[in-house]
Structure formats: structure tokens, C-alpha cells
């Protein structure tokens, strides 16, 4: 029972905290962390989201860009020191009285790759429940602010592989693609009950909207990237890619789930009834492949100290699934499921992602900014680096998907072809509305 309850709680919490988590990233480069997440050079998001950057020279001298970056995972050492016997650690065992869900969630949301130098404090208030035969009131105190008011969830669009070959700017290859999207939104009743301590009402549904999609496949791709005008010192670059998406499988569910209170809150034999309904549609691997056409475009302009780029991905990427099964499910006291249709055509749409970036380099100073939107709101990074002899000083700010401002700062030391970098980064992806600070370290080979 306890495991069930804690499991449910953790799901809610992980999902609830996922929105801020999605706004962060697992960056392995301390330089980038020191600049508030800003991508400079060919690293990070630029080449992924802007096909023109495949043709832009890396120009290591311009951005101090290393060839290879190797993270130094001090956080793992710290974590293993704190939890030497992980398999038997009671803090991670739901059956133990020492089980610590806060630690579990925070470990998931803040993978211990880097050192957590300042942990975000979590609320320490008591939580009170007032219960009577016909009343129920929950007072979360200060913790109520953690109950998400808006839609929250996780989504992503990735391209895990892209082998191919090219000639004179043209490239032919096959790209793997995966899109996932999980969303929740508490309804007004549940929100008022949890966040505003409103008493439970009779015969009322308390629930949340639930949506989930996962789809994936591969896409034969033809692309081009090249310099349209200019020379190696500067010019205008353009790139584009045409994808023929082939979907291997997908599943999607939409619905709501929650509970309905009884005529008397705790009066009857079964005063609270789980209630939910979903429409699920899926095309399993082995069914006819989904198909669709989409494209990426991007441009980049490099002129002296200035570099500007804009890239857009998955334009018009609507996938048609010719062999889909639709099922409806309804739960109220017992499960009731009914096939709606089979072998029907459905469509899904990949989110359009875009990036815009600006960099300005003069002497040993590089300043930059970028805006990245992967379908769930924009993330803005502004940062810079000042190199002084062997040393580099970096700083930056970012606005995450929660529209919260985060800060990065750091520095580096370079000996010939080897560099050691450290970066500090504030984050709010813990179960707290206060910031924590992560310290990242990495080795760079130039």
C-alpha cells in the first residue's frame, strides 16, 4: 500500500517537476555552463537545429572552441561517497522506513554528474489533513506553491543517429527520429483542493487531464549546406534538408483521470470512486509504416566579428499512419474497454523547433546569445567569454521554459592543447522554488 502510494506520489512529483527539468539540459561542457548554457561554435545546439552550420568553419581561434570536451564527474564521486551501498541504501528502498522520495526525485532531476555546491532548499512545513465524516481539508502550507497551476510535462524531439555520405555540400543519409510528449494539467477542483486548501465537495470529480505521445522511426534525408556568397573569412551560408519520415510505431493517449467524491465524503461504503476515460490510438511496429515529408532550413551569416544564424527543423512534418487502432477505456468501479476502430488512418505532427543565434567576437572577447524553442516554449541564453593569456573568464544568464532567470559563471585555464574548465550554474529543477547551484568541471583538448 505504502509503495503504491509513494509510487503515485513520485510519478506526480516527477511529472510536475519535469517542466523545469525540461528547461535545463544535461550539458557536459563546463565552458558552456559557465556561459549560462550559451552555444558557441559548432558545439551544442547550433549544428543540430541549423543545417547551414554544417558548412560554416569551426574556427577554433574565434571562439576558443576545443576539439574534444571530457566531463569530470565530481558529482558521481560525491554521490557514491554519500551512498556507498546504493543497492541496499534505505533512502532508495520504498519498503524501508528510511526511504526518501525527495532524495530520489532530486537525484532523477539533478543527475549527479556534477557537484551540487548549493542544494535548493525544500519546504519544511508540516502538512495538515482535517478529516471528518463529511469533510476533508488539506493544508499544504508553503508547499502548496509547488502544486503546478499550469500544464506541465515532458517533451522532446531527438535524432539519435544520422549516418550518411556527402559531396560538395550535398549529403544523403538516414536519420533516426523520436518524438515524445507527456502532459498533465490538474483540473480546477483538484487545484483548488491541493493548492488553495478548499474543502472537498460532494459528488465532485477531482482529476487531471492526461496526454501522452511517443513515436519514432527513420527518415531518408537529402540535405545541402554551403556558402552562397563570401569566402573563408566570412560569408552567407544556407542549408536545408528534406526528410521522408517513415514511422515505425507510435502510441497516443488522451483522457482524464481522477476521483469522484460521494454524497457524504466519508459516509458511504465507497464514498470515493476512481474515475477515468481515455482514447488510445497506436500503430505497433510491424504495422504499415507511417509516412510524411518535412524539412529543415537554416541560414548563417559570418562577417568579421559577427555571426548570426537562424534554423528551423521539422517544418510541415505531419506523419500519416495508415494502420492505426483506436481503443476507448473507461473506469468507474470497474474497467470497461471498447475498441473504437481498427486499421484506420491517423495523423501526428512533429513539433517545429527553431534556433536563432548571435555571436560577436573581438580580440579575446566573445559575446553571444541564442533562442531555442523545441516545441515547449523558448529558452534564451546570453553569455560571453573573456580570454586573458592562459585564463578565461565566463558568465551568462538564461531564461528557462518556466521563464525563470538562471545564472552561469566560471573560468578556465589552458596549457597549450589542454584546458581545464569550471562552470557554476544555478537551477530550479529541484523540488523547490529556490535556486540550487551546480559546479561543472571538464577537460578540453584543443
Amino acid at each position, binding site marked *: 500500500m505504502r509503495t503504491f502510494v509513494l509510487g503515485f506520489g513520485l510519478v506526480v512529483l516527477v511529472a510536475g517537476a519535469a517542466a523545469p527539468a525540461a528547461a535545463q539540459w544535461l550539458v557536459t561542457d563546463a565552458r558552456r555552463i559557465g556561459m549560462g548554457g550559451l552555444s558557441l561554435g559548432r558545439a551544442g545546439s547550433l549544428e543540430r537545429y541549423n543545417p547551414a552550420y554544417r558548412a560554416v568553419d569551426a574556427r577554433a581561434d574565434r571562439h576558443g572552441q576545443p576539439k574534444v570536451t571530457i566531463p569530470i564527474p565530481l558529482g558521481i564521486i560525491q554521490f557514491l561517497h554519500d551512498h556507498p551501498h546504493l543497492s541496499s541504501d534505505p533512502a532508495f528502498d520504498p519498503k524501508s*522506513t528510511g526511504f*526518501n522520495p525527495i532524495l530520489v526525485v532530486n537525484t532523477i532531476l539533478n543527475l549527479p554528474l556534477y557537484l551540487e555546491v548549493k542544494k535548493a532548499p*525544500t519546504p*519544511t512545513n508540516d502538512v495538515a489533513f482535517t478529516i471528518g465524516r463529511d469533510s476533508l481539508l*488539506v493544508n499544504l502550507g508553503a*508547499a502548496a506553491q509547488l502544486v503546478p497551476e499550469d500544464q506541465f510535462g515532458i517533451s522532446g524531439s531527438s535524432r539519435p543517429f544520422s549516418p550518411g555520405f556527402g559531396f560538395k555540400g550535398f549529403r544523403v543519409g538516414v536519420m533516426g527520429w523520436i518524438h515524445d510528449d507527456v502532459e498533465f494539467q490538474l483540473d480546477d477542483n483538484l487545484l483548488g483542493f491541493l493548492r488553495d486548501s478548499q474543502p472537498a465537495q460532494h459528488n465532485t470529480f477531482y482529476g487531471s487531464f492526461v496526454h501522452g505521445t511517443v513515436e519514432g522511426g527513420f527518415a531518408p534525408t537529402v540535405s545541402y549546406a554551403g556558402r552562397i556568397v563570401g569566402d573563408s573569412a566570412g560569408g552567407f551560408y544556407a542549408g536545408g534538408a528534406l526528410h521522408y519520415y517513415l514511422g515505425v510505431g507510435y502510441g497516443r493517449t488522451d483522457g482524464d483521470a481522477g476521483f469522484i467524491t460521494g454524497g457524504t465524503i466519508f459516509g458511504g461504503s465507497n464514498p470515493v470512486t476512481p474515475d477515468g476515460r481515455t482514447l488510445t490510438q497506436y500503430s505497433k511496429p510491424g504495422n504499415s509504416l507511417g509516412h510524411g515529408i518535412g524539412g529543415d532550413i537554416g541560414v548563417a551569416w559570418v562577417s568579421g566579428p559577427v555571426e548570426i544564424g537562424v534554423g528551423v527543423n521539422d517544418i510541415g512534418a505531419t506523419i500519416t499512419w495508415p494502420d492505426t487502432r483506436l481503443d476507448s477505456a473507461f473506469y468507474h468501479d470497474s474497467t470497461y474497454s471498447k475498441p473504437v476502430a481498427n486499421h484506420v488512418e491517423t495523423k501526428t505532427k512533429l513539433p517545429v523547433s527553431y534556433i536563432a543565434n548571435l555571436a560577436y567576437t573581438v580580440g579575446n572577447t566573445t559575446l553571444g546569445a541564442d533562442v531555442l524553442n523545441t516545441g515547449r516554449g523558448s529558452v534564451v541564453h546570453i553569455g560571453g567569454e573573456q580570454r586573458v593569456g592562459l585564463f578565461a573568464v565566463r558568465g551568462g544568464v538564461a531564461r528557462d521554459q518556466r521563464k525563470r532567470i538562471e545564472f552561469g559563471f566560471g573560468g578556465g585555464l589552458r596549457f597549450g592543447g589542454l584546458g581545464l574548465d569550471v562552470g557554476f550554474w544555478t537551477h530550479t529543477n529541484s523540488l523547490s522554488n529556490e535556486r540550487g547551484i551546480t559546479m561543472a568541471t571538464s577537460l578540453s583538448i584543443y
Partner: protein
Amino acid sequence: MRAKWLCLVALTAAVAGCGQGRAIFDIDVFSFLKATNADTLPYVGPLPPGVPDTIPVQTIKSLGIGSSSIVDTVRLFGSVDFVNRNGTGSVTFQVYFDTAKSAVYTGTPAFSVSGPVTPGVTTTSPFDIPDLPTALKPLFLASTVYVGIRASATGTIAGTAKLTALRARIVIQDKLF
């Protein structure tokens, strides 16, 4: 189902909110007893053979958190009126809890309230038990708790014991945090 839902809401919220905080449950036990008219119990002394001095055991769905949780304190407070019709003596009002229905009245009462009574007078006896004995605390982790009330008379008296309030404040220190 009731316990599961309550427990689910409780711990979800507790997990969401607590740092080093505790989960505190303020349960109006009286409201459950009153709904089944189990808040009133006649007393007679000496007790004639075959006349019960207890109420039928009542079922209350409790938290059902599980035995691995730790109950820090269980405070019980409220008030009982002894509405005495005739006779002079004293009445002892006892409340029992157990997780086995058949064992409710065989165990030790969770607490007792005594009061002298006189003819035609209602005696109000408030009570406040700061913390139940340690052995009884785990009872409140079970999903079902059975409650019993006994009213024992000393002297030749007759009347009615009327519970007017009974609340339980249960503090869970689950080491969740």
C-alpha cells in the same frame, strides 16, 4: 477504497511538501460515531445480567499508510456528558481501539474518563490525552480501526453517557523526508 484514496492524497501531498515536515491528521472521530448513533451509551449500576455496557464495535477506515511508517504522537481530546437520571455514584467512560474487531473489548482501553454523578444533574467531563501509549500508536497505521466505548457505573445509578466531541490528532513521522 476510502483509505486508499485518503492515503494517496495524504502521502502525495506530504511527499510534495515536506522537507523535514510531518504529516498531521486531525480526525473528527465524533462525526463518524454520531452518524451511527454510537455517540450515546446508557449506563446502569449495578449492571443487570444480560445488559451490555458497551456500544457495538464501530468501524473507522484509518490512514492505511503501512507498518513501516512511524506514528510520532496520537493525541485524543474531546468531552463527554454524563446525563444522570437518578442515583449517586461515578461513571467511567472508556474508549477502545484495535485492528481486530473481536479483540476490541478484550484489550486495554486507550483512555478512560471518570466523573461523579448526582441525581438529575449533567456532568461534563472534558478530556485531553496528550499521547497514547506506544503500543497503541501502530494501530493508526492500519487501513481499518475498530472503535468501542464502554460506560461503567459505580453505585446505584442510571443515566446516559453522551459523547459530545472526540478528535484524534495523529502525527506521522515517516522518515519520508
